[in-house]
């Protein structure tokens, strides 16, 4: 965790009760400057409700929110001047063109008119700028939403499931777009998703929310470490290889099919391979299990079914 860095956003005991039950429950988010914070959780976990509170759209039942060191209850406008956001599905005025939609927001922000062309080109909508938005595909509307969020040169960008409902090509496009942002503008990004795989490649920090509670918050690297559970060994005779490794005091596991090591440090792997070769086992493969990041996420949130 980048603990020594300036906190851009911090919540303390953030709670929202809706219909009698806590939809967001004592959440302590910490986001530092320059982070790309992946806010993960299955559908209905409370991501959107949290984000609405961060933007002052909904009032917390209890708890505090500080953005740029300021209390949202006292300095909402000063905070929102430096925040760009896209909440749930995109909002737009269908009868207006992309340019006019941005102009409607620009008049409220008071940024120079030239900024409209800039954000249109960032999201690659320059060619479609003069078309009514109601004829746009979902991916284009989503890109327009991101353009709107970028209009005010935000220091903090809050994107709530920006790839929801898009086809794989659209998802890829949005992902590339978001990945390119921090380099080009130096923003801090909070991006929510119900799929770890979607933010895995861009996030630097991860917060996982389940049933309203934040159950994990740390660097993506730390999550990867947790996920790197085992090394798979492809060998000619797994059973006797397993017995050999155990007799050498190595943490081996055999499930009557595949042989694996449950520790992944270099020394263990090197020693295991050396012993196997020494005893004339044929070693075909030594591979790290990579897909388990998602399975860790599913295990944490207990949500295999809902995805």
């Amino acid at each position, binding site marked *: 965790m980048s603990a020594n860095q300036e906190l851009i956003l911090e919540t303390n005991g953030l709670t929202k009760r809706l219909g009698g039950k806590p939809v967001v429950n004592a959440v302590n988010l910490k986001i530092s400057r320059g982070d790309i914070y992946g806010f993960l959780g299955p559908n209905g976990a409370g991501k959107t409700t949290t984000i609405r509170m961060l933007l002052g759209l909904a009032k917390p039942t209890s708890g505090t929110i500080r953005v740029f060191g300021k209390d949202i209850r006292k300095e909402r406008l000063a905070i929102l001047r430096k*925040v760009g956001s896209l909440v749930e599905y995109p909002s737009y005025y269908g*009868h207006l063109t992309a340019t006019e939609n941005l102009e409607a*927001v620009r008049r*409220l922000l008071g940024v120079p008119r030239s900024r409209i062309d800039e954000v249109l080109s960032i999201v690659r909508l320059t060619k479609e700028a003069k078309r009514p938005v109601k004829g746009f595909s979902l991916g284009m509307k989503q890109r327009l939403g991101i353009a*709107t969020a970028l209009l*005010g040169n935000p220091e903090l960008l809050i994107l709530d499931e920006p790839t929801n409902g898009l086809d794989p090509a659209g998802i890829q496009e949005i992902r590339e777009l978001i990945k390119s942002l921090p380099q080009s503008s130096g923003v801090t990004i909070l991006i929510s998703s119900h799929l770890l795989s979607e933010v895995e490649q861009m996030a630097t920090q991860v917060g996982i929310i389940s049933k309203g509670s934040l159950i994990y918050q740390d660097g993506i690297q730390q999550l990867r470490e947790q996920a790197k559970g085992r090394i798979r060994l492809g060998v000619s005779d797994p059973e006797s290889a397993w017995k050999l490794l155990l007799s050498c005091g190595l943490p081996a596991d055999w499930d009557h099919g595949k042989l694996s090591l449950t520790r992944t440090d270099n020394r263990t792997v090197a020693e295991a391979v050396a012993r196997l070769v020494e005893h004339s086992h044929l070693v075909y493969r030594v591979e790290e299990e990579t897909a388990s990041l998602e399975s860790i996420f599913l295990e944490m949130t207990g949500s295999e079914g809902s995805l």
Partner: protein
Amino acid sequence: MIGRVLSSEFLKIRKKLLWLLVVAGPLGVVALQAVNFGLRYDYLMKQYAADPWGGLIENVSILALPALLIGLAIVASMAAGIEHQMNAWKMTLALPVTKRHVFAGKFLLTAFLLLCSCVLLVLFTVALGFALGFGSSLPVGELLSAVFYPYLAAMPFIALQSWLSVTMANQAIPLTVGIVGMIVSTFAGSRFPDWVPYTWPQLNNEWGEPLYSVAMGVGTGIVVFLLGMAEFVRKDVK
């Protein structure tokens, strides 16, 4: 700040039917009177021989009142509908604007568009009067008060409809309230005591002073507006 909100509001109603309605309302009222005077010209001219302009203004007012009361409900609903349609409230209210200004913006937009209709009503009425050959003895004060007093006296309803339309996603409810209000005011308005707001747009009160109705309308309108604003500020955004 409120200037920015209004400038954004005017951009958003570009290319909307709303503008058509603003023109069609007064045009329809005057067109119906054109038919009325066209068909019964001799009869009406005899009846209003002493004051043909007064007769025309009276006839226009009779139709204009229900048109204003139903028009304000429709205009308020369409003004708020722009945000409801694609749920743009969450986008607008996550921008650095106060909820108060956003609420005031919708009310002022509605009030302004209705004011435009009133101005057009004056112009169309004058045009019809000249077309009917009533000459240049146009009673300007009488015409202006016949058009703008009811508008001001209807301020509580403009504020109420704006409030309901903004805070309710389902526009059937505010529109129903508006239609019922129009019927009540038009057909039963004179039977209520003076303190009932539905009587004010007709400008009848026991003192015979239309300005009392106007004053009560404007005062109550401001109160209703502030109540609506307080509720809008308090509520979470959908």
